C-alpha cells in the first residue's frame, strides 16, 4: 500500500476545478487500495507534508502554484516524489509566451503572436506599436494572459477599438499578455500518457462562441467527440505535434496539448497543460477512456510513473 497525499485547492482561480479533480482522484486512489490523505493547499502545506511523510504527492492543482513549478519545487526540496512534470517543464508550459517561442524555434506551428509586459505599455510606450501588430495579425485578434488556464481572461478583439479593453482584461490576470492571430476552426486536444498520445478529443461548444470557463466545466455546455472525426492522416499529425510539444517542453508522465484545425486542414498548437483537469467534463479522462483506460487505471498509472521516476531509497 502506498501513502498518497492528494494536493488540491490552493489560491488559484481554478481552485474549484482543482477541488473537483482532487476529489475524483481521491476516490480512485481509495478504490485502488492506497492510503489517501487530501491536503487543501495553504500556509500549513510544508508542516502537513512533513507530518504525513507520503510516499508520493498527487498534484491535482491547476493554474498558479500547482501548475507553474512552485509546488514541484517545494516537493523537490522535501524529497517527496510527485506526479506529472517537473519544475522546468511546468515553468515552460505555464508561460504561454515562453512555450510559443520555443515552438517557433523548434518549427512546431503555432499561431503568430506578439507578447508584452505591462511595463512595456506603461514605461516604453508600447501602445504606439499596437497599430503595427494589428496590421500583421489581422482581426479578430485573441488577447490572453500569458499564464492563466481555463480560458480565463481571454478576449476577442474584433476591431482596433476593442484591443485596449481586451488588454486591460488580460492584464487583470498576469503582468504579461499575448496578442495572437485568431485561428477559425475546430478545437482539438491531444492528451499524452507515459509518452504515448491518446485519441484526439474535439470540443464543440453548444451555444457560446468559444470554449470559455463555464462551457469547460458545466456538463452539457459542450459536447465532446473522441476520437474526433478527422479527415485522413490529420489525427496522426495532431498526435505527432502534441507529442513533439510535450517533449520540447520536457513534460513527463502526462499532459494535454491544445490545438486548432483551420479550414485549410492546417494544424497549430496553442498551448500545453502540464496538469490538465481530471473532472467529469475534462478531456484527459475522456481520451483515456477512448483508449480503453478507465479513470482508476489512469490515476494508478500516473502514480506508478511518479514512483518509478523517484530515485530509489
Amino acid at each position, binding site marked *: 500500500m502506498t501513502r498518497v497525499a492528494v494536493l488540491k485547492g490552493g*489560491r*488559484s*482561480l481554478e*481552485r*474549484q476545478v482543482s477541488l473537483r479533480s482532487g476529489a475524483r482522484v481521491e476516490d480512485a486512489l481509495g478504490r485502488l487500495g492506497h492510503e489517501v490523505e487530501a491536503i487543501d493547499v495553504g500556509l500549513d502545506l510544508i508542516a502537513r507534508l512533513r507530518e504525513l511523510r507520503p510516499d508520493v504527492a498527487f498534484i491535482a492543482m491547476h493554474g498558479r502554484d500547482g501548475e507553474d513549478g512552485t509546488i514541484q519545487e517545494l516537493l523537490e526540496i522535501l524529497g517527496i516524489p510527485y506526479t506529472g512534470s517537473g519544475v522546468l517543464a511546468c515553468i515552460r508550459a505555464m508561460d504561454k509566451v515562453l512555450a510559443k517561442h520555443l515552438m517557433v524555434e523548434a518549427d512546431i506551428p503555432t499561431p503568430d503572436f506578439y507578447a508584452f509586459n*505591462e511595463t512595456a*505599455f*506603461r514605461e516604453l510606450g508600447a*501602445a504606439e506599436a*499596437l497599430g503595427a501588430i494589428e496590421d500583421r495579425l489581422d482581426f479578430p485578434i485573441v488577447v490572453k494572459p500569458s499564464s*492563466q488556464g481555463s480560458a*480565463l*481572461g481571454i478576449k476577442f478583439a474584433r476591431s482596433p477599438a476593442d*484591443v*485596449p*479593453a481586451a*488588454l*486591460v*482584461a*488580460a*492584464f*487583470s*490576470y498576469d503582468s504579461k499578455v499575448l496578442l495572437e492571430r485568431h485561428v477559425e476552426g475546430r478545437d482539438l486536444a491531444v492528451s499524452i500518457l507515459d509518452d504515448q498520445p491518446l485519441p484526439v478529443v474535439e470540443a464543440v461548444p453548444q451555444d457560446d462562441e468559444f470554449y470559455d470557463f463555464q462551457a469547460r466545466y458545466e456538463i452539457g455546455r459542450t459536447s465532446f467527440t473522441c476520437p474526433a472525426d478527422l479527415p485522413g492522416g490529420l489525427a496522426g499529425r495532431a498526435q505527432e505535434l502534441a507529442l513533439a510539444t510535450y517533449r520540447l517542453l520536457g513534460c513527463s508522465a502526462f499532459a494535454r496539448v491544445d490545438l486548432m484545425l483551420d479550414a485549410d486542414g492546417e494544424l497549430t498548437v496553442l498551448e500545453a497543460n502540464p496538469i490538465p483537469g481530471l473532472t467529469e467534463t475534462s478531456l484527459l479522462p475522456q481520451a483515456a477512456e477512448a483508449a480503453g483506460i478507465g479513470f482508476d487505471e489512469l490515476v494508478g498509472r500516473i502514480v506508478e510513473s511518479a514512483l518509478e521516476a523517484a530515485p530509489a531509497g
Partner: protein
Amino acid sequence: MAVTARPEVISLAGGLPDTSTFPPDTFAAIAQRIAAESCAKALQYGPTEGLPETKGCIAQVMAAEGMHADPEDTIVTTGGQQVIDLVTKTLIDPGDIVIAEGPTYPGAVPVFCAYQADVVQIEMDAEGMRVDLLEETLDRLEREGRRPKFIYTVPSFQNPAGVTLSLPRRRRLVEVAHERELLVLEDNPYGLLRYEGEPPPPLYALDGGVYVMYLGTFSKVLSPGIRLGWVVAPPPVLEKINLGKQGADLCTSTLSQLMVQAWFEQARWQDYVDSLTELYRARRDTMLDALAEHFPPQAEWTRPAGGLFIWATLPDFIDTTDLLARALRDNVAFVPGAAAFLDGRGRSAMRLNFSGSNEESIREGIRRIGEVVTEQVELYGTLTGKQPARRAEPVPEPGGAEVVPMPTRSRRERRAR
C-alpha cells in the same frame, strides 16, 4: 470554500448580515426555554404551512411595515430563497416569461435558469424599476402573443442596485398588475433596514394581496442561519406552493420556528432591528466616504437609503469579472455585475456589501478595489493615448433624491454591444 471566502480576503461580495451582534445570553435563554418547555415538539415534524405561533410573529413583522395578511394565506418557508424557488416551480413551465429588474437579485438567477424561465429584465434608475419601460415591454410581449407568468421585484433597497421604487411607481406597478391581471412577487427582505427618509408602503399594502404575492424573511431582522421566511399568496397559488413544499422538505424546521417564537416573547425584536440599523447606517456611510475617496472620477455608484448593498458602475472598458481576478491578488472581493443579469449586461458594474464587514475592513477593502480600478483606468489611458472621460455628474432630483441615478440606457446599450 470559494477563493473569495479565504480568511485573508476582505470580502465585500457576500450578502451577510452581521450576526455577531446577537446577544449570546439571549440565544442561550431561548434554547434553554425550548428545552424546558417544548423539547419533543421542537424535535418533531411540523405542519407544511408552518406553526401558528410563527405566523403570529410574521403578523407582527408585517404590521411594522403597514401590512395585514391573513394567517391562512401564509406559508412559513425555509428562508426567503425557498419562496422564489416554490413560486417559480409553481408558475413556470420551460420557456415561460418572468419579468425581473435589471440588475436582479443574483440568487434568483439560478432559480429562474433551473426552471428554464425566459427572463426579461427591465432597466432601473434612481427610483427603481422603470415602470414605463415595463409597460412598453408588456405591450411588446402582448403583440408577440406572449404573456409573462409573474413579475419579480425587490422594491426596497434592491439587491443588488440599492435603489428603492418610488411611491408613484409603486402605485403604477400595482395598477398595471390589476389592469393586466398579472401576478407580482414582492421580495422584501430589507424593508425594515432603513437608514434615512420615510418608507413608501409595500406593494402588498397597496394591492391588498390580490395580485401581489409577498415574500418576507427573518434573515435580515434576526438571523439567516435559522432559515426562516414566508410567502403570502392568493389561495390557488398557495395550494400549489404547499404541494411544492411538501415535495421539497415537508416542513420548515420546527426548532427554528420555536426559536423565533421564544425570541419574540422574550425580547423586543424591534430593538434588535434598531441596533442593526444603527450599525449598518454607519457602515454604509463609511463605504460611501471610502468610495468618494478611493474610486476614480470615472466611476459612479448608488447611495442606498437602506439595505445591504451599493452598486458601482465603472467605465465601459473595465470588465468586472476580470477585475475580480486582479482584486483577489490584493485579497479583496466583490460580486461582478454580470451575475445580476441573464443577458450579458452588467459587465462593468459591481455589487458591494457593507453590512458584513466592520468599518476598518470596508475602508481598506474599498481602498484596494479603488487602487486596482485606478490602475486599470490609467492603463487604458496609456493604451489609447488619452484619459477616459469622466462620467457625467449626477443631476440632483427635485425634493432631494436619495440615490445617484443608475447608468442610462444608452450607456448600457453601448456596453452590451
